[in-house]
């Protein structure tokens, strides 16, 4: 296994490959979260999405999420791959795999990972509709950081 646990890629993501990174004989429970491109967002039909990242920092932030998870769930092993570039409807944008000895931890740590990705990982998506485009998150009223920083209990 030469691929890192936390990575940004421009290629299609293999779910199996991400899962393989966390399979261990001592961990009987594996959860995965797979985020795909939805056809409709708020009733509007998406044609495709364009994902962009600050790649080096994004990989660092994914690794930081892994570190936070190991602090909260010491027996968990985590792997995350996020894709960037042009993605069509149904394409996989992100895969998070978590293995733990006990299943509750696998669900909770996985959910923690996706919430944190949406807070601190510098990745942006631009929606392309028939009648225009928009960078998601650019609506100031819905996404603001009053403290000037992303929120999250462990964020330093």
């Amino acid at each position: 296994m030469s691929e890192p646990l936390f990575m940004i890629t421009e290629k299609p993501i293999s779910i199996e490959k991400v899962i393989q990174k966390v399979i261990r004989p001592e961990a009987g429970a594996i959860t995965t979260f797979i985020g795909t491109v939805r056809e409709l967002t708020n009733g509007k039909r998406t044609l495709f999405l364009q994902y962009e990242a600050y790649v080096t920092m994004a990989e660092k932030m994914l690794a930081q999420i892994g570190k936070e998870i190991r602090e909260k769930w010491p027996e968990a092993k985590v792997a995350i791959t996020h894709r960037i570039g042009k993605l069509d409807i149904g394409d996989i944008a992100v895969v998070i795999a978590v293995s733990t000895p006990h299943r509750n931890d696998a669900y909770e740590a996985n959910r923690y990972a996706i919430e944190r990705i949406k807070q601190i990982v510098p990745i942006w998506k631009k929606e392309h509709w028939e009648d225009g485009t928009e960078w998601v998150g650019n609506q100031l009223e819905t996404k603001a950081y009053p403290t000037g920083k992303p929120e999250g209990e462990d964020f330093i």
Partner: protein
Amino acid sequence: MMITLLFFAHLQEAIGQERIEMQYVPQTVKELKQQIETRYGIDLRHVMVAVNEEYAREEQQLKPGDTVAFIPPVSGG
């Protein structure tokens, strides 16, 4: 004596560049943000800043060689 500025997503489109080498080093993140806002007529109130790939507070001091990224609200996942 310079710093590198990186812009992403709609900021990159607004400024028309993804990377700017700035020949002068403002004292703090806050000061830099104000200068960029004035110069490009953009609103950075809801934009985070990372210095050398770490999120930084407004009062963080800048030094020559720093890479400063302007990070609009993220939307990955």
